[in-house]
C-alpha cells in the first residue's frame, strides 16, 4: 500500500503542475485586465502561470521526498523486526 501511494503520488506530479499553472494563468489574467497593453497583459498572465506552476511543483516534490518518512510511521514492523519492536515497546 505504501509503495502504491508513492507511485501514485509521483504520477500526480505533472497533473499538479498543470492544474496550478492553469489557476495561475487565470489569476494572472484577472490582474492583467487592469492593463491596456496586450503584451503586458500576456506577460502578467504567463508569469502567473509560471509562478503558480513552479511553486506547486516545488512544494509537491518536497512533499513526495518526505512521504517515505511519513509512511514509515504507519507501517507495521516486519516479522524479523517484530521482537525488537515489542522489546522496544516494553
Amino acid at each position, binding site marked *: 500500500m505504501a*509503495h502504491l501511494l*508513492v*507511485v*501514485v503520488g*509521483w*504520477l500526480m*506530479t*505533472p497533473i499538479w503542475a498543470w492544474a496550478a499553472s492553469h489557476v495561475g494563468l487565470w489569476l494572472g489574467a484577472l490582474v492583467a485586465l487592469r492593463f491596456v497593453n496586450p503584451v503586458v497583459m500576456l506577460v502578467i498572465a504567463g508569469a502567473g502561470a509560471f509562478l503558480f506552476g513552479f511553486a506547486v511543483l516545488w512544494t509537491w516534490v518536497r512533499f*513526495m*521526498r*518526505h*512521504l*517515505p*518518512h511519513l509512511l514509515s510511521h504507519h507501517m507495521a514492523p516486519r516479522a524479523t523486526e517484530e521482537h525488537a519492536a515489542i522489546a522496544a515497546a516494553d
Partner: protein
Amino acid sequence: MTAPATAVRSEFRHILLSGAIVGAVTAAAVVLFLLVSRLLSPGIVASVLLMLIVLAGGVAAAFLPGFFAASRTVQGVASAAAIALWGTIVFMAIDIILLRPFKAYPWTWDAIGGGSTWWYLPIWWMLGTFVGWMGAIVTSGRAARGGDPSVRSLALPAVSGGLGAGLGLGLGGLMFMPVAAGAGFVLSLVVFALVVLARKG
C-alpha cells in the same frame, strides 16, 4: 517518381515486441552507466563518458519508438507513444528482477526520492513515454517535409542541444554533467517537436 509511402506499424504484437527492444536498450544503457560510474574515479573523463551514455540512451528512448512505428501520421505517433510506454514497463521489469536484487544503484539514487525505491519508476513511465511521443512527432514532421527520417539525422539537433547544455553547465560546475546533458536533450527535443506542430498548424 515518388518514393512509396511508408506504412505505419501499429499492430499490437509489433508494439509489444518493439517496446521490449526499447526497454532492453534502456536497461543496457543503465547498466553501462552504472559500470562506468563504479569503475572510473570521479573526474572529467568519467563525467564526459556518463554524459555520452545518457545522450545515447536518450536517443534510443526518443527515436527508436518512432523508427519502429514508422511514424508518419497521428496513428504512427500514437503507436510510437505506446511502444515507448511499453518500453518503460519492460525496463521496470528488468529493474525489479535484475538490477534491484544486485543492489546496482548507489544509496544516493534512492535518497533523491526520500529513501524510496519506487520514486523513479513512475517518473520514467511518464518521461520515457513523453520523449518517445516527442521523438515520433519530430520523425513525422521530418518525413512530411521530405527530409531524412533516419534516427542519426533526427537525433543530431537534440544531441547537440544536450551536448551544449552538458558541457556548458557541467564544466561551469552548475550541474552534474550527465544530468545537464539529459535536460538539454529533452528540452531541445520538445522545442523541435513544438516547431513541427507550429508548422503543421
